[in-house]
């Protein structure tokens, strides 16, 4: 209520009344200036977006080839322009899938709890701490997974599942948040109709609520996957790096796309006596980094696009 009186006060104060009664070029000038500034602010956000995507495409497109996508970096040293990111793509897909398998059941069940059952202090604190959890720095999630596994397996352990656990910590709150919004959209009449037919509550949730919101839930999950697929820091401290293909997330180090891009970036230029040739390219490492970045950004944008299109195409027509 205090807000209402505050913002309707211009009508009451004599100061504003005088201001409104006179035609004032200064006011129009301010209005114009602010409008221009606000348009500029939006342009300021679009410049880096377009610039960045264009840079990644321009720098990375040359490196993309069938070999780059289907080979690993095993036995590739210095400026050798062979090799590729197959091991990193495999690692990213496996670890992200594992993280999804861990986070989605917990996330959706928590959302169900908050929407269908939640009341009292537990629901309030879950809501609050889910919000707080979205702000956990990714490196802290990585350190948590490291500490957890270091206590069990010793401090030098680096396995794929550690990375999946770290990513789940980042992913669960995102899944809860978006799924909660989606479940709230399900009209109450549907639940009541189901209860009226004598259907038990759990069956109503599974068959009516979840069925109605399945498109929205898929979108939420896909956007959450898109958010964690590009995480670098937690994987750097938990999964380590390798140049070989490793499909087993329970044993040995794995490579992932963002970590690969970072490793190649930090290698710098390779020494090539006699200049660039077919077997030695000086800046091959940064080319690899841009190539991996392009594949990664394509994955993220595709996940975002598919996620948004699913809601648009498959959402049930309500009301």
């Amino acid at each position, binding site marked *: 209520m205090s807000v209402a009186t505050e913002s309707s006060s211009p009508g009451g104060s004599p100061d504003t009344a005088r201001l409104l009664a006179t035609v004032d070029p200064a006011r129009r000038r301010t209005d114009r200036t602010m409008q221009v500034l606000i348009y500029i602010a*939006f342009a300021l956000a679009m410049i880096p977006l377009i610039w960045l995507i264009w840079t*990644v495409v321009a720098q990375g497109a040359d490196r993309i080839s069938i070999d780059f996508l289907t080979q690993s970096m095993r036995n590739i040293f210095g400026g050798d322009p062979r090799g590729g990111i197959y091991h990193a793509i495999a690692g990213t897909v496996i670890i992200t899938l594992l993280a999804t398998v861990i986070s989605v059941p917990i996330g959706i*069940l928590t959302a*169900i709890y908050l929407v269908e*059952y939640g009341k009292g202090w537990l629901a309030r604190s879950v809501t609050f701490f889910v919000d707080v959890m979205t*702000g*956990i720095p990714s490196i802290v999630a990585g350190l948590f997974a490291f500490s957890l596994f270091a206590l069990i397996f010793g401090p030098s352990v680096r396995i794929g599942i550690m990375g999946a656990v770290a990513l789940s910590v980042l992913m669960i709150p995102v899944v809860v948040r978006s799924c909660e919004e989606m479940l709230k959209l399900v009209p109450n009449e549907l639940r009541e109709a189901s209860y009226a037919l004598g259907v038990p509550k*759990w069956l109503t949730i599974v068959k009516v609520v979840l069925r109605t919101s399945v498109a929205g839930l898929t979108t939420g999950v896909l956007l959450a996957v898109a958010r964690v697929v590009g995480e670098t820091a937690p994987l750097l401290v938990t999964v380590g790096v390798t140049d070989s293909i490793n499909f087993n997330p329970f044993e040995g180090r794995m490579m992932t796309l963002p970590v690969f891009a*970072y490793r190649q970036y930090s290698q710098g230029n390779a020494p090539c006596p006699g200049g660039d040739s077919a077997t030695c390219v000086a800046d091959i490492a940064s080319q690899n980094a841009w190539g991996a970045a392009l594949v990664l950004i394509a994955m993220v944008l595709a996940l975002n696009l598919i996620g948004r299109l699913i809601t648009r195409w498959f959402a049930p027509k309500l009301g």
Partner: protein
Amino acid sequence: MSTTISRPPARGSRRRRSSTTDRGFNRVFRWIAVGAGATILAVLAAVALFLISEAWPAIMASPEELASGVPRYPEDTSLLGYLGPLVYGTILAAVLALVIAVPVSMGIALFISHYAPRRLSQLLGALVDLLAAIPSVIYGLWGFFTLAPVLTPFWLWLNDNLGWFPFWGGQASPTGRSMATVGIVLAIMILPIITAVSREVFLQTPRLHEEAALALGATRWEVVRTAVLPFGRSGVISASMLGLGRALGETMAVLMILSPGFTYSLDILAAGQHQTIAAYIAADFPESTGLGVNTLIAAGLALFVITLAVNMAARWVVARRKDFSGAN
């Protein structure tokens, strides 16, 4: 909201006939859902507990033990004295990003909520959200290879002509790998979250408030200034704090762009002066063993505590606003 309306009768009926409705799989399913909710709290508690347990050896170690056990650890420094410059660098980077990002994202939020055509606003909002989807390692690559060289002449000019200003003094970096560049990249990375929250708040401004202002002859900017901004003030504050939390924890962009150093310097244009906690952990973790790892985890614990405090304060402001906003 509609779910809360129907709940009281449902609860009453269950109380009366609890034996018939809350039994069998109904009860099992309810407990599964409650368990999932409790898991969230357990995970957050576990994060704190495991970090403390792994950081404990470093917290308890004497300066001599730390100096011998941790590479590049200065003599006669306590753990707090060691982490001090890192905390300072972390906060400096985040505040710098915030100073740049808040005005711009308020502009973007106003553009989307009140200036852009209604039909376009959803698409434009999604475009801004795309900035949040781009992985931080790509921001790092772009900042290092593309943005830093572009900004360097500008930073050098600032240093030459306005070097008397406290922040722009010192020896400006010829490569642009300075705190100033990091601040700009971080600002771009936190734009989407600040914009998204502010936009939601601005859109909730009661229609009648705006129409009242318009009826009094206000221009569009005056509507924004007298109706929208006062209504959204606490929302913008909490959005900024959420952005601050993001900027505090950002790792890869800082790690890849900033040339690190461990001082309390104000010279944001100089290289080798600052380092953030997150970037420091990511840089040193792969090569660390023993007490070195414990020290890094202690740094991570400090970061966790700082971001937790900022995020909780932000959420608290949001929650308080919900109760007293008068709009709902």
